[in-house]
């Protein structure tokens, strides 16, 4: 392990947030089995007080986890490449961890999704004096715990695996992905053109669904619209990420077949990976939340107005993020086309 202050901060942040979430989860477990709303019994009053402490603890845990994830990404993209021999970007760093940190990042994003869902439900829950979602939301909090544990353990194992004396071959890993130029123009054996068309068709569909969900937000059809939006957003994000790395990244790198997502986070490419992947994260979070908030509106009449407002907000955020993302990937390509009269690749 490299005893770098940033990595130590990530480990400490992870352990602290896990501890706080675990503390909140013990109360959430009590809520699941013992919650009797509006009872005057001492046990219930104490449980309500503990629920409030648990809420604060979980919120703090989310904030710390977000911070440690941000630090981890900064470490992978901009700090550790200077320490790991042979690493020029995050690809080399992930190679030094035997891919463990890459896996950890996937689990961390999933945990972050559950945490965001919990926070959304909690805000809706607190909007009503009788807190109708308390028991429901306690289950969401408990659901995150095993994944949280997995994320922290995988991250820790990955960080421990980093060796500053063992060189990696960063670029070789990127270019070894394809044997010939023909395969470089394919993704999973399917030509890039197909993926580009799929991406744009799905983008058009997703934007239409987002507009549809915003227009039908106050009607019963809203649930159908947000459901479609959630499904499309979940399919769209991986396809958008693949086309970005395999096709559109070339317009930022101005080099063909450099299929590396991590170089987009480097200063020489103006940290463009941050807004691009940030938009993807917003879309994959807000798509399902838009649907789940609409479901809450349908099932809890007391929360109808608030839940619909949240569903609408999610749709609006998704729409803005999608427009920003497509603009960011399309404009450099169009500029290139106008300047040189050809598409790259």
């Amino acid at each position: 392990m490299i005893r770098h202050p940033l990595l130590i901060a990530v480990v400490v942040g992870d352990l602290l947030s896990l501890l706080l979430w675990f503390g909140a989860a013990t109360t959430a477990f009590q809520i699941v089995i013992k919650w009797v709303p509006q009872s005057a019994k001492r046990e219930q009053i104490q449980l309500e007080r503990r629920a409030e402490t648990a809420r604060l603890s979980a919120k703090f845990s989310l904030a710390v986890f977000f911070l440690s994830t941000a630090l981890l990404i900064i470490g992978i993209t901009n700090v550790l490449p200077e320490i790991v021999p042979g690493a020029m970007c995050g690809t080399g760093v992930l190679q030094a961890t035997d891919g463990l940190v890459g896996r950890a990042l996937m689990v961390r994003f999933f945990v972050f999704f559950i945490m965001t869902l919990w926070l959304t439900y909690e805000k809706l829950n607190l909007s009503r004096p009788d807190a109708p979602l308390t028991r429901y939301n306690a289950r969401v909090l408990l659901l995150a715990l095993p994944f949280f544990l997995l994320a922290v353990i995988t991250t820790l194992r990955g960080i421990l695996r980093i060796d500053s004396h063992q060189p990696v071959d960063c670029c070789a890993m990127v270019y070894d992905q394809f044997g010939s130029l023909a395969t470089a123009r394919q993704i999973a054996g399917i030509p890039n053109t197909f993926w580009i068309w799929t991406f744009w068709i799905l983008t058009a569909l997703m934007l239409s669904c987002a507009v549809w969900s915003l227009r039908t937000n106050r009607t019963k059809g809203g649930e159908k619209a947000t459901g479609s939006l959630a499904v499309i957003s979940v399919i769209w994000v991986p396809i958008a990420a693949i086309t970005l790395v395999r096709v559109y990244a070339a317009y930022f790198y101005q080099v063909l077949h450099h299929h590396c997502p991590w170089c987009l986070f480097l200063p020489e490419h103006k940290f463009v990976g941050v807004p691009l992947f940030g938009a993807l994260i917003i879309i994959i979070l807000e798509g399902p939340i838009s649907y789940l908030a609409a479901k809450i509106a349908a099932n809890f009449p007391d929360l109808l107005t608030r839940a619909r407002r949240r569903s609408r907000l999610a749709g609006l955020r998704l729409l803005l993020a999608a427009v920003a993302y497509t603009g960011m990937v399309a404009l450099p390509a169009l500029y290139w086309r106008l300047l040189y009269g050809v598409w790259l690749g």
Partner: protein
Amino acid sequence: MSLSLVCQNVSLLRRCADGSERAILRHVDATLNAGEGAMISGKTGAGKTTLLHLFAGLLRPSQGQITANGQPVSRWNTVHRDLWRRQVGIVFQHPHLINDFTVFENVILPMIPRGTSLRQLRKLAWDALDTLGISHLAKQNVLSLSGGEQQRVSIARAIVSRPAILIADEPTAHQDDEGAALIIEKFAGWKLPHTIMIVAAHDPRWSQYGKFTDKHFHIENGRLRELR
């Protein structure tokens, strides 16, 4: 809209050491309107303090509910109840002052979480201290005060936020006649069109001085009766 506080069929049960349940309050019904002064009398242990704590949202009834302007505040969760409680000023039977703080610091304490500006906060605190004639004690530590003075500080702390509901439990218990007369007179003066005042006392001086009482309730064995 004028504020009203309604107690609907409220009972409070407590578990005894032998596991059985004892009713502290039984089927209490009462309506209190803004601009009225309500007096609750009864023997020691009759349930006066418990009833005040229910009105203040410090306890939750086992049966029935307490509504404020039709909203069932007694059934609300802690976060909303805490917010509602900001409208309530309460004078406890024991002053419950913070010994390490001065009189002034004790008085401004309930205003701090409300985000009031420091200037406004000082003005409100001085007003409350002046009203009760204890502004000369502002810089003293509360430990150096007599029981009666401490009680006046606790009243100042309750009124500093100008609450819509003022609840006082035996506010004249430690006062001499002069002090009691001042406090009763003040309570009568605070009966504003937008304020509900509830006092629990078995001090006969409340009927001697001032014109505080508009509604008189008597509590006995956990049952509430309206006398006038």
